[in-house]
């Protein structure tokens, strides 16, 4: 078993290495035809002219190509901006599209080989490693050693992993052209699924889905005595693979709008953006269904399901962010901050983001129905601010990049506006609670330590008080690490759900309100 474990780890690291090196293996040669092909019609003439000096030149690296591109393109844009000729400024970033079109390299000539040697090896190695290392471990030992691990306790490996993830997200969001060689190798898959070209988002979606699947296998093995964890993991793998990854691509293949049926506003913050609404309305019956479905989820789905099952129905069974957190992020759950201070920050931040999303969406809709007479282009700037600060920086870079630093639910806890909405329902109108088993708590603190949302579960349990907290995503790990059978996630009558004055069972001398 140790041998297989070693081989798995080796293959995994080798795959990561290839994945990391591939973006550096490529050269670029741009032609006018490519520019015409990749660029919107209104920009074609100008860009074809601006990029003239690049045609026929060979650039040995992405960086060299992008430098040349910027040197010729940026001055034009800067000059327009200086003149405040806003309507002529080219806001589109063609860097990625042109790099992808102009590139040559192993990933383009042999996409399948490169895919197998990078992502393929990572998946194979990962699966081998998980099977081999789960061998004789008992579930009760599932969490031992996490604080003795360099990776899982902010040691050197943890810092390295965090840096790598943060770097990946920064490049993905703001310098995607550097990833174009990686996008080449997934091009055949994209063509097969959607009939169209692959973008950096297709690459990301594929990697994301595979990460959830491979680390989901780890969860199922780790919790092989725990049906709740297994079902929940199967559920997030299913929703990510089918709803977030495959169905939207197939919709594109069928010439329908790209749509993730399980994504809900305000997490899906651009649902009410003007171009989205236009897409829905112009796409016939299915488009209209998407619009109505999305609205029904917001006004009926969220309150109803949350009333019956708590916010867990979404956060740890359906959601893609939650899916990644619960699989890839599982090994980092204990790094969440449990202090009272963190809870205070959390409440301000998450409800602040919710307020921002609601205001932004409200303005967008008002603006839309007043045919942009009211606010003009202001909503666009609001959108790009939100997209940058919340959608990319917070949800992506911090949300995932900070797994090894602040735990796996930083985004869900401090930033996700949908989690805030679900949480308000869960706190004030729901049948869900974590029941404390009478007086059995021994205050050991395993529950609090391993709560990814930073809830001080013990503070409730040791008083014999049920846990009703807006942030609880119902992952069920507190119940599973509890050595004395004290905690149980339950849906039940609202009456008696919250113990304002809990009484610990077992002492007949007094009925103490602690």
């Amino acid at each position: 078993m140790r041998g297989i474990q070693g081989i798995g780890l080796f293959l995994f690291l080798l795959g990561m290495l290839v994945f990391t090196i591939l973006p550096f293996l490529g050269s670029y040669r741009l032609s006018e035809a490519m520019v015409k092909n990749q660029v919107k019609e209104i920009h074609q003439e100008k860009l074809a002219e601006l990029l003239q000096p690049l045609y026929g030149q060979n650039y040995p690296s992405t960086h060299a190509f992008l430098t040349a591109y910027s040197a010729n393109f940026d001055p034009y844009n800067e000059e327009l901006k200086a003149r405040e000729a806003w309507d002529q400024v080219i806001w589109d970033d063609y860097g990625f599209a042109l790099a992808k079109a102009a590139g040559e390299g192993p990933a383009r000539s042999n996409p399948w080989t490169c895919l197998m040697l990078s992502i393929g090896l990572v998946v194979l190695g990962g699966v081998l490693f998980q099977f081999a290392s789960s061998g004789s471990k008992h579930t009760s030992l599932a969490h031992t050693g996490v604080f003795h691990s360099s990776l899982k306790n902010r040691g050197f490996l943890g810092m390295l992993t965090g840096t790598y993830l943060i770097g990946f997200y920064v490049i993905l969001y703001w310098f995607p052209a550097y990833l174009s060689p990686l996008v080449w190798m997934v091009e055949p898959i994209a063509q097969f699924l959607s009939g169209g070209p692959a973008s950096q988002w297709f690459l990301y979606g594929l990697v994301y889905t595979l990460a959830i699947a491979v680390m989901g296998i780890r969860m199922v093995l780790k919790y092989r005595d725990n049906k709740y964890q297994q079902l929940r993991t199967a559920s997030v793998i299913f929703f990510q693979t089918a709803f977030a990854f495959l169905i939207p691509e197939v919709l594109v293949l069928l010439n329908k709008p790209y749509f993730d049926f399980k994504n809900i506003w305000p997490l899906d913050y651009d649902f009410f953006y003007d171009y989205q609404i236009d897409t829905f309305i112009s796409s016939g019956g299915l488009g209209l269904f998407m619009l109505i479905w999305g609205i029904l989820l917001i006004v009926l789905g969220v309150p109803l399901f949350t009333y019956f099952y708590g916010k867990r129905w979404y956060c740890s069974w359906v959601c893609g962010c939650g899916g990644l957190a619960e699989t890839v992020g599982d090994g980092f759950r204990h790094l969440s901050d449990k202090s009272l201070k963190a809870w205070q920050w959390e409440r301000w931040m998450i409800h602040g983001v919710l307020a921002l999303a609601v205001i932004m969406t409200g303005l967008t809709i008002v603006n839309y129905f007043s045919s942009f007479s009211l606010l003009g282009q202001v909503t666009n700037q609001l959108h790009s601010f939100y997209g940058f600060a919340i959608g990319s920086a917070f949800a992506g870079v911090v949300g995932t990049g900070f797994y090894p630093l602040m735990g796996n639910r930083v985004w869900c806890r401090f930033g996700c506006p949908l989690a805030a909405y679900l949480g308000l329902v869960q706190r004030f109108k729901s049948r869900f609670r974590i029941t404390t088993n009478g007086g059995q708590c021994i205050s050991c603190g395993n529950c609090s330590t391993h709560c990814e949302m930073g809830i001080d579960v013990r503070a409730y349990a040791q008083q014999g008080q049920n846990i009703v907290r807006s942030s609880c995503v119902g992952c069920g790990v507190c119940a599973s690490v509890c050595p004395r059978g004290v905690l149980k996630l339950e849906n039940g009558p609202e009456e008696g759900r919250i113990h304002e004055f809990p009484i610990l069972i077992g002492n007949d001398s007094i009925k103490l309100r602690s």
Partner: protein
Amino acid sequence: MGSRHFVIIGNGISGITFARNLRKGDDKARITVISGESPYFFSRTALMYVYMGQMKWEHTQPYEPVFWKKNRIDLIKAWVKTITFESKILVFDSGETLNYDVLVLATGSKPAFFGWPGQDLKGVQGLYTKQDLEAMEAITNRPMERAVVVGGGLIGIELAEMLTYKKIAVTFLVRENRFWEQVLPEAESSLVQKHIREHEIDLRLGTELKEILSDAQGNVIAVITSTGEEIPCGFVGIATGVIPNVDFLKNTSLMIGKGVKVNSKFESSIPDVYAIGDCAEFEQPPGPGRRNLEQVWYTGRMHGETLAYNFCHEPVAYRPGIWFNSAKFFAIEYQTYGWVQPEPVDGLQDFYWEHQDGKVSFRMSLDQEGKILGVLNLGFRLRHEFFDKAIREKWSGEKVMQALDKGMFDPEFYAPYHLGIQAAFKQQIGGDIIPSKKSFFQKIFGASQ
């Protein structure tokens, strides 16, 4: 009541529960807690998890440091050397002193050593204090093939699990002929023994420690057992029970037996001096079936609650309710509610069910009229509230069985063991029980009982 100065010696669960509840009921009292072990209250039950890298030390502390300031509970880290009861003065081993108006002794207990030759060697220790944990970490971080654990109780099995985490082979000496014989009936003992052996523990039943051998530097190198066998080892964990930690109170005017003698209101032989938790010894058992020394977490907490109540209200006698307890043996959880006897008792009837995989069991003790006295469950969880009520109201075994689905506490989607238990009860004891229905999910996913 004015602003009396309450001084509590010991910051374990008893002392801290007392301090917290006193503050809730009395805003004026001056409260000081003294401990030489650690500056802040920590959960002793979590020592093993720190050792196994499942928690960090700070996680064992249920309250943040700011809590004590906010609640005006002064903490002093020092060891008390002597107490002058006549003038109500404590003397610390630094020589400093502290006056009190009311003294609460909550000094807990300490591992019992039975005078084995070599018991003071380096590498021989119990596991009770923060210092014990640190010493054990230091010693077992050195390369070591084997360790010996002595004593088949709850701390013994924790020590075995801890050492296993460090990949140190363990020989586990248990004096009794079966594991935890004073508490577990035979079937449960053997279930747990099987589980212990599955974890590659060399479990020796009916075997005692005779002597501990050392090298020239005074490090333990082997033990000799009652069977005369010599077992080489680098560490010896002693877990042969605990005794009240009251040595520094001996030879004073305070009446001491095994622990500090107290009445049902925790009053010692000296006015304004009280004792709670492990160090208190009741003159009379506090309830039927209870012992004069109550040395578990839960009773310590109840002592603290009750004494604090007594300073804020008309004092009452300590009267514990239905007994309950819990533990964990490697992966197998143990719970009990009410009384289950370890040996068969004439006139009482036991219903016992064991799952075919041999890791889950349920026992219910019934009196002559078939009414429930208690339950003992391994490998699955039962609801405290349900069984507290059933035992208090003396439900018939049949009634308990009929409602058993309400008494289950396992996580959702777990195997519905109550179905198997109900069927077995019907077969063994009889009665008109309609088994619970399978839930929607249990039908879909094929529940295994």
